[in-house]
């Protein structure tokens, strides 16, 4: 038995993330109206769709940053929609990177990467520092270890944010429109980092507007509009023979 088997009964042949009939409302506004899909280990999933279609809300529900009203989200067998949810257990498995990077501005790049393993996982500092240095190198920011976030470009900050998330050794990464706030020339370096991660077998869920990238990297693409999944499929067929008029319209505007 592999060590990833937890007491939840989850085994690696089952979906790593399993979302069933997910409903999410903000007050009277229902943002997600029954979304279901599975993500297998090592898969890269891209979620696309017009603004306000609930894409970001969807992945924020996966690591319990938003609570849900109905349905089920299971991450390696852990039910997220459970009042007794051990959030720390969940967040150890799920890494998240945000559109606005959200680095801790009072800490240097390497300190940002080191903080959570030391404070949350209580790992020894020397060990964490070594790993953090490796991660900084991995996202190609060698030499920027001692820079503060405010001294880095958007693309550099975003890569520190990715390293910070990876430092927790997550099993799955969520990327919430992480290139949306970046200059076009820095988008590439961030996407390259994600591509490398995907190639190493990291399970990823991306909310993105980078269609070319989604086509290249995704195993499966989901198109959401007004709180439901309108259409989905592997990129090869998704971009060429979309059936739903809403998908067609969206793709015609964006491609």
């Amino acid at each position: 038995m592999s060590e990833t088997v937890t007491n939840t009964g989850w085994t690696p042949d089952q979906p790593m993330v399993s979302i069933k009939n997910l409903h999410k409302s903000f007050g009277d506004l229902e943002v997600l109206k029954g979304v279901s899909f599975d993500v297998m280990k090592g898969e890269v999933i891209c979620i696309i769709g017009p603004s306000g279609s609930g894409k970001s809300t969807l992945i924020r529900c996966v690591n319990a940053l938003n609570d849900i009203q109905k349905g089920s989200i299971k991450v390696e067998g852990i039910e997220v929609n459970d009042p007794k949810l051990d959030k720390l257990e969940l967040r150890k498995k799920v890494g998240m990177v945000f559109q606005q990077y959200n680095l801790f501005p009072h800490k240097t790049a390497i300190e940002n990467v080191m903080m959570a393993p030391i404070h949350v996982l209580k790992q020894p500092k020397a060990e964490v520092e070594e790993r953090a240095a490796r991660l900084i190198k991995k996202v190609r920011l060698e030499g920027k270890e001692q820079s503060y976030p405010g001294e880095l470009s958007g693309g550099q900050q975003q890569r520190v944010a990715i390293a910070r998330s990876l430092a927790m050794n997550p099993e799955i990464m969520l990327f919430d429109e992480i290139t949306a706030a970046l200059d076009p020339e820095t988008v590439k370096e961030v996407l390259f980092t994600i591509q490398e991660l995907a190639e190493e077998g990291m399970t990823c869920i991306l909310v993105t507007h980078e269609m070319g990238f989604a086509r290249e990297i995704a195993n499966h693409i989901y198109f959401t509009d007004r709180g439901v999944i309108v259409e989905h499929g592997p990129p090869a067929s998704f971009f060429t023979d979309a059936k739903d008029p809403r998908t067609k319209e969206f793709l015609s505007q964006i491609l």
Partner: protein
Amino acid sequence: MEVFADFFRDLYDTTGLNFVIFYEEYESERFIAAVWTSLKLIVICLILSLVVGIVGAWAQGAKSRIVRLVMAGYIQFFRNTPPFVQILFFYFVVGTTLERAGLMPLVDMGGWNEPLIGNFGWAVVSLSFFAGAFNVEIFRSGIEAVPTATREAAEALGYTRLKSFIYVIFPLAFRVCLPALNNNLVNLLKTTTLAYAIAVPEMMYTANQIWSDNVNVTEMMFVLFIYYIVLVGILVWLMHKWERKMIILGYN
């Protein structure tokens, strides 16, 4: 030292300006004792008021409604009543009641007993809570200035509310509210003179005793003004140094 004393003795003889604390041993000992007492009072109150402010700001965000209500009540009481009344209340009402009810532990002073919290203690309690109430509000404004996104980033990394407060939110909030904090601490330093009312032998009280004995009110007033100008100057200088040290590169 003798030259110094002679100068002031001469000054008195020639001009009538009586800075008795600088040339008469008894009075200068009283003065130095007052310096220590007032410094002790100020430093303890400054530190405790910061502790009250930090713990209070944390408690204000508590899940429990009761904790939040207690905090709101505390702040309303201390912010909306005069510190002078508070200090009298603590010493004469709270202190006396506790002693009468036998709830105040006594400390053996070698032949006689004194209550654990005497006039100095009650001055510390009342002034720390007074300034602490303002500190809570100051820290709260700083905490509210920390973007929700930063909190969420910490949350997504597995930080609990307490850990996120200690390592992320408070360090950022603190920088935002340093100027306001600065003002309140200066105010607290000056407000410690109210301990005079319950006979704590700090600078104000001692100055009053000295001028009663020597009829040199004007001179002692000058001493008081200069004493507090210097102390506030030092405090502000330290706070500014701290502020500069806390500047984050590329962040405002």
